Structure formats: structure tokens, C-alpha cells
């Protein structure tokens, strides 16, 4: 089928037998359309490296169209004059529709991104629904202030939507990342142009249908598939876009920041991490093992805030490592993500797979001890991989691997643990295991990180701010904090009698 002949919809049947009508076009102005130059991209399932389907890929002219639609919608009273409660009602409706279509959406993320079906069902989809409902509740609760400066004036602030927001999302939680971005942006009255990741465009397009069904006016939400270098770059540098929100690699994050400077557009960025998990000698080792496993093996390690560096106190180092290896061997079930027993699916693409395997070689070459894994039991599958005796200067200690790959090292004192935990250009998450309440809070306060888990890891919640310091990002998603990413505070001074 040549690129010109790609239809706008196609019937798909997933390996688990679920069937649906898959949109393939660019969702602009509540319609699916072909890309202007007719460009398409292939989305491949990492399960078997076979193409699922092609979808239309946006280039800069398509982005222009989407921005035009978003701008018109932003200025249209159908959206701009909608009472906040009614905006919330649309988000509640969207959440309900995601819930209704949970089977297809979870199937999509499993097929397209290789995530285990039990996880897409109970985590990705459920969290997406929860997030949309959470922001639906915020819509009519975003308030300005009145500020008393004395009788000479009435002063108040308006918290207004920023305008047309470009949103670029990654492939590791395709649906959920869309929910995290759309929720706060729409709750506060913005309009959006959202570009999915080229590795996982399908669930976003299905979601687009639900956006229309929920009743959002045309142009409020525009969803396009496309490549970072073309569509993504077009969004980041577009002079008609007032704000860009990006989640992805730090490398690309820098490019987005530079591109955004063209019109000083507001930016929020969620990039990478090399988050430390520190285990003190008084920790509950069994619990530390279990959480550490979640912290690095979840989603096959493809988590920005994965606790991929473990610093264990020297007195429990060997015990922890042994228990971690035993637990991982017993618990991780690597295989076909459509199999309900599978806890650990393939990396999202051959490219990602190769990147991670390169780090296995790197680790060995640098002199770290490979104690588990480093092997591939199937297409794009990587066994849980454990390196011990890792030193801070090793690349496997500094660089984000983004795979089921953990680097373990030992420490002596609390001060040393903190210092070395902070020895990173990143600062996204961190975990601390201890029973000592003072130590827990002191370490939490001293670690350079946007999030700290005490006696758990990667235990995120939609109501709690998520984001990083240093090169892990700018701004916070989730919780009330995300609203600030999408509003401008305008101060209004009403002169009550100062006549010149």
C-alpha cells in the first residue's frame, strides 16, 4: 500500500483477539485528516518487530493547521466562555469514556509499546482515568486572589489560561502521559496540540475519538502523530504556540528549550533520571528488596524516575544483593506482554533494546560485576540485569540506561550516601530505606531530587507533584502544582480614587 493510499481508519485485531476501528489520521478540529504532504510513519510492535499499521505523520505544515485550529478554538466563545464547571464536566465525561473503552486502550498500549496487559489494564488505564477525574474536579476551583493594599485600590489577580499549548509526550506510558498533559491544560481553559511518540501513536488517536465523543468543541484538543525532529521541532519553535510541555530525554529536552526561545514560550520539561535508592543498615531488607525491584524492573525499566542506582550500606550490602537477585529471579516473568502472567515485556523498540544491551557491554568493560541477566530471551526482551560494585564514575552509574538494569554500590556513612546520591546531573526521584525517623526526613531534605520516597519507590500518585531538579526538568506535573504550568497570573489594579 503506497503512502497515498493509507485510509483514515482501519480495522485492527490484536493478538488477544480484541477488535476495533483504529483512526490513522491527524486529529485536527475534531476531524481525522490526512497529513498535507501525505507522510506516514510505521508503528511496529516490539513483541515481534512487525508493523501494526502505518499512521499519518504530521510535518510542520500540519502543525500549522493544528495550531490554527487550536487558536481559533481558544478564541471561540464555545470554549472561552464555557463556565469552568462545564469544562470540568467534559473532563469527567472523557474519564468515563476511557473507562468504558478500557479493554481497547489497554490492548493498544500493550501491542504498541510492549507493556504487560495486566499493567496497562490496572495501572496505565486506571491512572489515566483517575488523573482526568482529578483535573475535572479542579476546573472550577482555580481562583485568583484579592490582595488588600489599602483603600486606594481594589487589587485582584486572574489566573488565566496561557493559550495554545504544544504537548509532546513519550512512549513509555502512552495513554497515561496524554492524560497527565491534557488534564491540567484543559481544566484551566487552554487548547492543545499534542504530539504522541512515533513509537506509540495508536492509543492517543483512539483517545482523540473519545475527546470528540465527550463533547469538546472542535479545535480544543488536536492530536497528531509524528516524529520529534519534524513535528516535535515544529511545535517547539512555533510562534503561534504559547507554551510547550515536553516529556522525553534530556537531550531532546535541551533542543526543545532552545527552540522555544524563539518566542519565549513558556516551557515545562520532564526529562531523564538516574534516581538513587539508598538502603541504610536499619532498613527492613525484605521491603527494600521488593520496592527496589518495582523501582527498576517496572515497565522493563523504561521509567524516567526509576531508581536505577542502589546505594546499600556496607553491612547489609551482600545480604541485600543476594536477596534482590533471589527475589528478582523468582518474581520477574519475562515474556509476551499479552500473557497475563508476564510482568516484564519487551523494550519498546529494537533501537531501545540495542541501547540497553550496549550498556551491558559498557558495564562489563568498566569493571562492574554482572551478577544477573544481561541476556535476551526473545525479541527485544532483556532479562533483569544487575551490576554490583559499580563506581560513581562508571557510565552505568551516571547515564540513564532506560532498561531493566540496576547499578549497585556500597557506602559507609549517611553523609557519604547523600553526597554520592547527589553525584548526578539528574535529580528526578530518590528512595530512602530506614526506620530512623530523623534520618528519613534529613536525607529526604538533603537529597537533590524532585521526589523522595521513604520506604518505597516509584509509588507515585496523581494528586502529588511529579518532576525533577537539575537536568531532570523544569516544572511539576500532577497535583495542584500542574495547574501553574497552564495559567498566567494577571494582576488587576482598580484605582479607587488616586487622582493626579
Amino acid at each position: 500500500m503506497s503512502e497515498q493510499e493509507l485510509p483514515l481508519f482501519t480495522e485492527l485485531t490484536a493478538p488477544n483477539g480484541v477488535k476495533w476501528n483504529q483512526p490513522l489520521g491527524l486529529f485536527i478540529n475534531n476531524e481525522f485528516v490526512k497529513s498535507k504532504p501525505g507522510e506516514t510513519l510505521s508503528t511496529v510492535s516490539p513483541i515481534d518487530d512487525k508493523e501494526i499499521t502505518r499512521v499519518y505523520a504530521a510535518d510542520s505544515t500540519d502543525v500549522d493547521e493544528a495550531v490554527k485550529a487550536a487558536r481559533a478554538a481558544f478564541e471561540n466563545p464555545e470554549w472561552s466562555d464555557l463556565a469552568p464547571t462545564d469544562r470540568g464536566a467534559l473532563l469527567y465525561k472523557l474519564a468515563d469514556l476511557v473507562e468504558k473503552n478500557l479493554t481497547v486502550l489497554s490492548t493498544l498500549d500493550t501491542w504498541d509499546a510492549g507493556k504487560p496487559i495486566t499493567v496497562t489494564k490496572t495501572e496505565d488505564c486506571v491512572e489515566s482515568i483517575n488523573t482526568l477525574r482529578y483535573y475535572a474536579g479542579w476546573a472550577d476551583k482555580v481562583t485568583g486572589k484579592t490582595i488588600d493594599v489599602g483603600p486606594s485600590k481594589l487589587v485582584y489577580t486572574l489566573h488565566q489560561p496561557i493559550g495554545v499549548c504544544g504537548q509532546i509526550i513519550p512512549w513509555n506510558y502512552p495513554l497515561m502521559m496524554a492524560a497527565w498533559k491534557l488534564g491540567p491544560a484543559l481544566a484551566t481553559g487552554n487548547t492543545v496540540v499534542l504530539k504522541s511518540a512515533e513509537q506509540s501513536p495508536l492509543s492517543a488517536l483512539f483517545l482523540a475519538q473519545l475527546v470528540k465523543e465527550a463533547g469538546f468543541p472542535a479545535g480544543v484538543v488536536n492530536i497528531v502523530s509524528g516524529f520529534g525532529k519534524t513535528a516535535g521541532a515544529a511545535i517547539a519553535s512555533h510562534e503561534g504556540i504559547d507554551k510547550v510541555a515536553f516529556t522525553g530525554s534530556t537531550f531532546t529536552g535541551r533542543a526543545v528549550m532552545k527552540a522555544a526561545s524563539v518566542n519565549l514560550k513558556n516551557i515545562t520539561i520532564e526529562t531523564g533520571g538516574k534516581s538513587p535508592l539508598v538502603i541504610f543498615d536499619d532498613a527492613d531488607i525484605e521491603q527494600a528488596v521488593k520496592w527496589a525491584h518495582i523501582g527498576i524492573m517496572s515497565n522493563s525499566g523504561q521509567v524516567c524516575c526509576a531508581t536505577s542506582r542502589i546505594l546499600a550500606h556496607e553491612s547489609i550490602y551482600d545480604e541485600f544483593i543476594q536477596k534482590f537477585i533471589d527475589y528478582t529471579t523468582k518474581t520477574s516473568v519475562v515474556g509476551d506482554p499479552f500473557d497475563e502472567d508476564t510482568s516484564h515485556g519487551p523494550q519498546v523498540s529494537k533501537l531501545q533494546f540495542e541501547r540497553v544491551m550496549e550498556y551491558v557491554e559498557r558495564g562489563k568493560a568498566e569493571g562492574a560485576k554482572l551478577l544477573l541477566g544481561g541476556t535476551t530471551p526473545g525479541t527485544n526482551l532483556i532479562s533483569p540485569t544487575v551490576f554490583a560494585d559499580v563506581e560513581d564514575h562508571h557510565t552505568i552509574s551516571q547515564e540513564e540506561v532506560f532498561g531493566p538494569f540496576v547499578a549497585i554500590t556500597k557506602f559507609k556513612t549517611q553523609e557519604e550516601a547523600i553526597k554520592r546520591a547527589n553525584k548526578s546531573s539528574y535529580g528526578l526521584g530518590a528512595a530512602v530505606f530506614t526506620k530512623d525517623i530523623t534520618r528519613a526526613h534529613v536525607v529526604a531534605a538533603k537529597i537533590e531530587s524532585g521526589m523522595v520516597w521513604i520506604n518505597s519507590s516509584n509509588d507515585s500518585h496523581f494528586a502529588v507533584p511529579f518532576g525533577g531538579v537539575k537536568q531532570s526538568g523544569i516544572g511539576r506535573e500532577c497535583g495542584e502544582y500542574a495547574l501553574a504550568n497552564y495559567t498566567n497570573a494577571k494582576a488587576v489594579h482598580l484605582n479607587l480614587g488616586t487622582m493626579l
Partner: protein
Amino acid sequence: MSLTKHIELPNGVRYSQPLGLYINGEFVKSIEGKTFEVINPTDESVICSVYEATEKDVDIAVKAARDSFDGEWSTVTPAARGKLLNNLANLFEENRTLLSSVESLDNGKSLTYSALDVNGAASCLRYYGGWADKVHGKVIDTQPGTFNFTKLEPIGVCGQIIPWNFPLLMWAWKIGPAIATGNVVVLKSAEQTPLSALVAAELVSKAGFPKGVVNIISGFGKVAGAAISNHMGVDKVAFTGSTLVGRTILKAAANSNLKKVTLELGGKSPNIIFNDADLDKAIEWANMGIFFNHGQCCCAGSRIYVQEDIYETFVEKFKARISAIRLGDPFHDETYQGPQVSQLQFDRIMGYIEHGKKEGAIVLCGGKRYGSKGYFIEPTIFSNVKTDMKIMQEEIFGPVASIAKFKDVDDIVAIGNATSYGLAAAVHTNDLNTALNVSNRLKAGTCWVNCYNMLSTALPFGGFKESGVGRELGKAALANYTQVKTVQINMGGLG
């Protein structure tokens, strides 16, 4: 007496009316078997009887609430609480016809307005459902070596006593914020209007609330209401009703366990029209301000003040506007004003009307009963009124307005504030400075500019002075149902 009665409403709606006390997730008879009659104010007939809660029943309800608070309810996450309220809001909307029909039958307000009340109630429940997982404490840095935070915790078992003028709306206003913040409730409906509260109680179960979290009882203020406000096991009481009863509740709280108290009481709100107001619009707002809900609004604009230059014109136009008000059967489409809620209210209002005449006020229109059956009173306006007249100082709570003229801003501010109440006020003008200046100086919890009676779920509502304690609606209501716990952890910086 059975626990349900099949009722057919004048609009053909047929349903099974629960008659029992809704305690611990089910409808039960009152312990002593007491019941009381529910009267239809449109034709004075008895609709049915419902079970009456006495002190013993209140005890049982409080215990059920306490057990759920200490038990299952404490394990339910904030987001899950919000979902339950959202479910309940959806159920209100799905059952709008039933709820509004029952409301019109029991309260006498027209079907059009009871339907708006149901919508308002659903919006309110949904609004507070959205707050449930957004009630944040703070982390406060005082000095190194300490870690300090606050939590906004639920108060516990909340007694809620609601009035009869907007039964379902008041039900939602109380339950929404209390439940969102993690409390449990024992809510007593008004003895004049117990029916819709019980139908709503059925929806509580349907929505999935654990048993004992929401308890709804019918009863009298002097018995069940007093039992609630005096109860040692009730941590907080919220009351909406007359200032007289509000005082009693405050005293009972003081005499028992110093339970927290919030009160929404009466008002004698000034509705002020300046020369430069849009006259026709002001007429509409003045009409709405006092005759909406048959004058049975705590915030009714019962004192209408018109600036002298437009006074005569205003009065003529206003009289004409009043004459267009349609009184009648609440189930008829064209009805705007139905009956007052009860014989007692009817007598009180007629009493005030007679008193007004005696004091020398002049009846410009109305002043008498309408028809011969049902508690209908003609929309009434008094002129030639003086500030110290009883009809100018006391809340009449009926379709009775007084109208007077004023000179200027200083004049009207003084007159507007010459009341022990302070619930609401309104200013009609096209001059921004007048609007801000006057609303700044009026001692009222809500100041409307160029409108009246426009309540919104997101806007705090409550009284200055003797109109109440605390605010309902908006984020402000959450404070009524939370208490701040400060946790200060010494991490080596102290001692």
C-alpha cells in the same frame, strides 16, 4: 405503619416513598414508633406520615455514624470519597423528575424551581466531590532540626439540621463539604418537608456509600434537633434556620461538649436601586429578590430602597410587575408562586402584615390571602415604612416587601446597615465606583451588584452579625468540617 407508601403525584409520577429513619444504610422504624403527618401546603391535605426520630433514635444514628467513622470510612481514600459524591450527583440528575416532583408536593414550590433545586443540589455534590482529594495541609519551616506540617483532619460525627425552604439544596450544601473532608453525618430534615430527604437517602445507598456514613432522620427541632445539638457524641453541628433557634443551638453546644457550630440564619437584606440603575432590569431583580421562592429565602431582598429621583416611577412599574406574578398549583407550568410551606408560616406572615398596617405602613398591593385553600398569600408591598417598625426589623419570611426612598450613598449605607442582620445586600447602579463603594461599606456576607439571589456553588455564602457564623459553599465550607492538626517533629534542633 409500614416503611414505605406508594404515592401518585399530581403529574402522574408514581413512586414508593420511604417513611423510616435512614440509619446505618437502611430504613428503620423509630424506636418508640412515633410518627408525624406531612402536609401538602397546596391543598392542606395529609400526604402521609413519616417516622419521627426522638432522642433514642438520635443516639442510634450517632453510634452508627461514629462506628463508620472509626471503622470503614477511615480507610476510604479522599479520591474514593470524591467518587462517591460524584456518583450521588449523577443519581440526583438521573432522578431529577422524581426528586423535583416530591419536592413540589411537600414544599409547594413550582416544579420549574424544584427542578432547578435538584440541578443545584447535584452541582453542589459534584463540586465537593471534586474537592475531596484536594484538601491540603502545609509544611512550615520554623528552624533547622525540625520538620513541621499541618493536616486538615475531619472533625468526626457532624449533626446537620436543615430548613424547609430548599430541602434538597440544603441537604446537598450540608452533606457535600462534610463528606468530602472525611466526616460522617446525622442529618435532620425539617419537619415541614421530610420527604425528598428520604428519597435522596435511597440514592446514598445506590451511590455506594458505606453504611453509617450518611444518616438521614425526620423529626422536630425541639426533640431530634435538640438531641443532636446537646449530644455528647456529636463533634460538630451545622444549622440553617431562624436566628432564634440558632441561639438555642449555640447554647446547647456550649452546655454539652463545646461542639463546633456553624449557623446560617436569617436576614433582612437591603436591595438598593440608584438613580442611574437600568430601571427595567432593577425591577426584575427586585421582584426576584423578594418574591422568589415565595419570599422564603434567608437572603431575600425584603427591604427595597429606591433613590428619590426614580422612586415614583419605580413604584408604579414595580406594582405592575407584581400583578403579573402567577400564583397557583406548583404542578402547573405557568405557576411562579406556590403556597407558603405551612399553616404556621402562613399565620406568622399574615400576622406581620396586620402588624404593619397597625404600625401605619401602607399596603401598595397584596396584603391578603390568595384563594381559600392552601397557604397562599398575595405578593405584598408596604410603603411609608420607618426603620424601627417591626416589619422593617424582623424577618417575615414571606412574599412581603417594604419599599422606601433614599437620598445618597451615606444615607443608604446607614439605612442599609440599620439591622441586626447582615446576610446579603444588593446595589443596582451603572457607576463602578458607587457599586464598589457601597458594597464595601455594607455589612453583609454577600453583596450583589446588578443582580439578586444569584447563589453559586463556588461562591462562599453566609452572614455578618446575627445572620450567622461561618460560610457555606465554595472552598470556604471545607473549613467548617476540618480541624487543623499541627505535627512538629524534633529532629535534633530542639532541646
